[in-house]
C-alpha cells in the first residue's frame, strides 16, 4: 500500500541526495583542482629552482647543483627525480635517485609548464613537470674559460656550431635560441592523500547529512502528517452505530479543511441513509411478524390436537394465505429496493398523460364506484410527455389505488399545470383520516395510517414507491393536506433524457417533499 509518509521521506531523501551529489561533485572538483594546482605550483617551484641553477658560461652551461643542498634528489624512499636535456635531446644530467631509470622528456615554457602523471622509477605514482629553460648567452658572459674545457659542473651546450644569442643564421633567419629541458618528477602521494581526505570528508558529510535528513525529514513529515493521523483516528472510531459523530474540523490545516468538511457531509448522508435502512428493516421485520405468528399459532394448535381435521385444514389454508401475503410483501420490497438502487432504468417514449390516467383508472373504477368515488380527469388531451410510461404508471397506479382504498366518498381529481420544462400533476381526494402530522410519514416505507398490519392488499410501500420513482424520472413529490383534502403534487420534466435521469438518492425522503426537486 502506498504511504505518504514513506513517499515524502523518500522524495526528500532523493532530493537531498541529488543536491548533495551535485554540490559535493562541484566542491570536490573545485577543491581537487585547487589542490592539484597547489601541488603543481610546488612542483613548478622545484623545477624552477633547478632551472635557476643553470648559468651560461660561453659554450657551456654551468649547473650549480649541490646534492647536499638538495638531498631529495638522492636515492631514498621519498626520493624525487630530475633529468636535464640539451635542446638537441641529448640527456645532460640526471638525479642520482633515478639510477638507471629514465624520465620521459616533455616540456612547456616557463610560463606554461607541462604537467603529467607517471609511474616513478621506484614504482610510486608520481607527477612530473617539464620546462624548457632558455640558456642564451648574454653580453656579460664570461668567456675566459671557454678554451679550458668544461668543469665538472659545466655542460657543453654547443660544440661550436650553435650560434650565440642574437646571432643570425646563414639564411638570415634568427637561429633557435638554445635551451635546456628540465623534468622533475615527485611522488603524488601527498596530493592523493589530500584528495582521498577530501573525498572521505565529503563522504562522511554526505552520510551525516543523509542520517540527519532521514531523522529530521521523518520527524518533519511525521509532524506535517499528524493532522492526517488525527483525522484518520477520528474516522476509524466512527462505526455504523456511531454515524452521528463528526470529525473535528476546528484546527484542521487549511489543506485538509475541505476534506474534513466533505467527510462530515458524507457522514451526514450516510447517517440519514443508514437510519432509513434501519427503519426500513425494522418495518419489514415488523411487517412479517403477524403472518408468521398466524402460521405458527395455527400449526401449534393443529399439532397439539392432530386428530382434529378442522384444525389441520386451518393450517393448510393459513399456510397458503400467509405465503401469498408474504410473497406479495417481498415482491413489493424487492421492487422498491430495485427502484431505490436505480436498477429500473427509464425507457423513454412519447405518450399522452390523460390516456395513461384513464388506462390506470379503468380496473379501479368498479371498486371506486362501490366506495362512492368517481374520477375527475382534468388533464388536457394535448398533454404529452417523453418519459418512461411504465414507471410513471407505477406512480399514478399507487396514487389512484390509494385514493380508491382510503379516500372518503366523493371525487378523485387529477389536473396538471405547465411549469416550463416540467409538468406539475396534482391528485386530490377527500380524507378525514389523515392528520397534518401524518403527511410527513406518507412516503415512509411501511407507514400506514392504521397501525394494524393485517391489510393484505396494501404493502405500505405504495407512496414510498411514488416518491422514489418520481425521483428516478427527474422530478419530486410533495404531499399536502389542504382543507380536508390530500393533494399529492408530482413534478416531472416534459422530456427526460436517459443520461440526465438521476439515480435515486439513498438519503431519507425529506418530510412533505420527496425527491430531488
Amino acid at each position: 500500500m502506498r504511504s505518504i509518509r514513506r513517499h515524502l521521506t523518500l522524495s526528500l531523501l532523493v532530493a537531498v541526495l541529488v543536491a548533495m551529489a551535485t554540490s559535493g561533485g562541484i566542491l570536490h572538483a573545485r577543491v581537487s583542482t585547487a589542490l592539484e594546482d597547489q601541488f603543481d605550483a610546488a612542483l613548478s617551484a622545484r623545477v624552477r629552482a633547478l632551472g635557476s641553477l643553470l648559468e651560461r658560461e660561453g659554450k657551456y652551461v654551468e649547473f650549480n647543483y649541490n646534492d647536499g643542498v638538495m638531498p631529495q634528489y638522492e636515492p631514498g624512499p621519498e626520493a624525487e627525480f630530475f633529468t636535464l636535456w640539451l635542446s638537441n635531446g641529448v640527456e645532460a644530467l640526471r638525479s642520482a635517485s633515478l639510477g638507471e631509470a629514465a624520465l620521459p622528456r616533455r616540456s612547456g615554457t616557463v610560463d606554461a609548464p607541462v604537467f603529467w602523471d607517471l609511474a616513478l622509477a621506484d614504482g610510486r605514482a608520481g607527477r612530473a613537470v617539464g620546462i624548457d629553460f632558455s640558456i642564451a648567452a648574454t653580453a656579460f658572459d664570461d668567456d675566459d674559460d671557454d678554451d679550458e674545457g668544461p668543469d665538472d659542473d659545466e655542460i657543453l651546450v654547443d660544440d661550436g656550431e650553435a650560434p650565440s644569442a642574437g646571432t643570425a643564421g646563414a639564411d638570415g633567419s634568427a637561429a633557435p635560441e638554445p635551451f635546456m629541458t628540465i623534468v622533475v618528477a615527485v611522488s603524488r602521494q601527498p596530493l592523493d592523500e589530500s584528495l582521498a581526505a577530501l573525498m572521505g570528508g565529503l563522504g562522511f558529510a554526505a552520510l551525516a547529512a543523509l542520517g540527519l535528513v532521514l531523522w529530521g525529514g521523518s520527524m518533519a513529515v511525521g509532524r506535517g502528517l499528524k493532522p492526517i493521523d488525527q483525522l484518520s483516528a477520528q474516522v476509524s472510531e466512527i462505526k455504523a452505530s456511531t454515524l452521528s459523530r463528526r470529525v473535528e474540523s476546528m484546527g484542521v490545516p487549511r489543506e485538509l479543511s475541505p476534506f474534513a468538511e466533505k467527510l462530515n457531509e458524507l457522514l451526514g448522508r450516510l447517517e440519514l441513509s443508514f437510519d432509513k435502512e434501519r427503519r426500513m428493516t425494522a418495518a419489514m421485520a415488523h411487517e412479517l411478524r403477524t403472518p408468521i405468528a398466524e402460521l405458527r399459532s395455527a400449526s401449534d394448535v393443529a399439532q397439539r390436537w392432530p386428530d382434529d381435521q378442522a384444525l389441520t385444514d386451518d393450517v393448510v389454508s393459513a399456510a397458503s394465505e400467509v405465503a401469498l401475503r408474504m410473497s406479495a410483501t417481498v415482491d413489493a420490497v424487492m421492487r422498491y429496493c430495485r427502484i431505490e438502487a436505480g436498477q429500473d432504468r427509464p425507457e423513454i417514449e412519447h405518450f399522452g398523460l390523460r390516456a395513461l390516467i384513464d388506462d390506470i383508472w379503468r380496473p379501479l373504477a368498479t371498486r371506486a364506484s362501490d366506495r362512492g368515488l368517481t374520477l375527475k380527469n382534468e388533464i388536457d388531451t394535448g398533454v404529452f410527455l417523453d418519459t418512461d410510461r411504465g414507471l410513471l404508471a407505477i406512480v399514478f397506479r399507487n396514487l389512484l389505488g390509494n385514493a380508491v382504498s382510503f379516500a372518503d366518498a366523493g371525487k378523485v381529481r387529477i389536473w396538471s399545470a405547465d411549469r416550463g420544462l416540467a409538468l406539475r400533476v396534482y391528485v386530490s381526494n377527500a380524507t378525514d383520516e389523515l392528520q397534518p402530522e401524518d403527511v410527513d410519514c406518507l412516503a415512509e416505507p411501511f407507514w400506514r395510517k392504521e397501525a394494524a398490519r393485517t391489510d393484505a392488499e396494501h404493502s405500505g410501500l405504495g407512496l414510498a414507491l411514488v416518491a422514489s420513482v418520481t425521483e428516478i424520472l427527474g422530478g419530486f413529490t410533495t404531499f399536502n393536506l389542504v382543507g380536508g383534502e390530500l393533494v399529492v403534487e408530482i413534478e416531472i420534466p416534459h422530456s427526460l433524457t436517459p443520461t440526465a435521469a438521476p439515480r435515486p438518492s439513498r438519503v431519507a425522503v425529506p418530510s412533505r417533499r420527496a425527491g430531488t426537486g
Partner: protein
Amino acid sequence: MRILVVEDSQRLAQSVQAGLRKLGHAVDVVHDGDQGLSYARVNPYDVILLDIMLPGRDGMSVLRELRAEDVDTHVLLLTAKDGVSDRVDGLQSGADDYLVKPFAFEELAARVDALGRRVRGPSTPVLRIDDLVIDTGARSVRRGDRPLDLSRREYALLRYLASRLGETVSRIEIEDQLYDEDHFPNSNVVASTICSLRDKLELDGAGRLIHTRRGLGYVLAEPVH
C-alpha cells in the same frame, strides 16, 4: 376460564380461539379496539389477550381506558413490537404480561393459565379436595388412585367449581364462565354437564363432592359422611 381475544388478524385470532377452546376455556374474539373495549366492559373475563396495533382504538388505548374504569381483568398484550421500551410502556400502562409475535401456542396457554391462577387463587397448579386431585398444569384429574377421563367442558366446570371451593356458584355464573358468545347454552346444558361430571367423580361409590343448593346453584365441597 373466560377469555377475550382482541386481535385484528382474523386468522391468528381464529387459531388462538380454537386452541384455547380445546383447553376448555370460553373464548370470545373481536377484531378492533372499540369492540374490544365494549366486550371487556360488559363481560366478566378472566383474561384479555390484547393486540396493540388495532384498527380504530389501539390496544394501549383500550388498556388505559379499562384501567381508568377500574376494570382489573388480567391483560396479556400480544404484539409484534419487541423493543424494550414497547414492553415497558405496555406493562406500565397496566398490562399483566407481554408476549411478542410470533409466539408458541404452548407458551401463550401457559401464560394464560398463570394469569388465571392469579384470578382464581392458589398459585400452585395442584388442587386437592378430599381425595380429588386436580393438576391444572397437566390438566389431569384423579379420584384417589383412579384417573378420571373428563371431557373438555367437564374439566372446565370442575376447575371453575374448585376455584370457588365451598362457594355456591349459580348456573348463570357457570354459563358465563364456560360458554362464550358463540356457544351460549340452554338451561339444561349446565345441569347435564354437572350430572355427567358427578357420575365420573362418584364411580365405585365414592362420596359426592358436587352438592346441589336447590334454587341457588352448585357447590364443590368435601363429602358429607
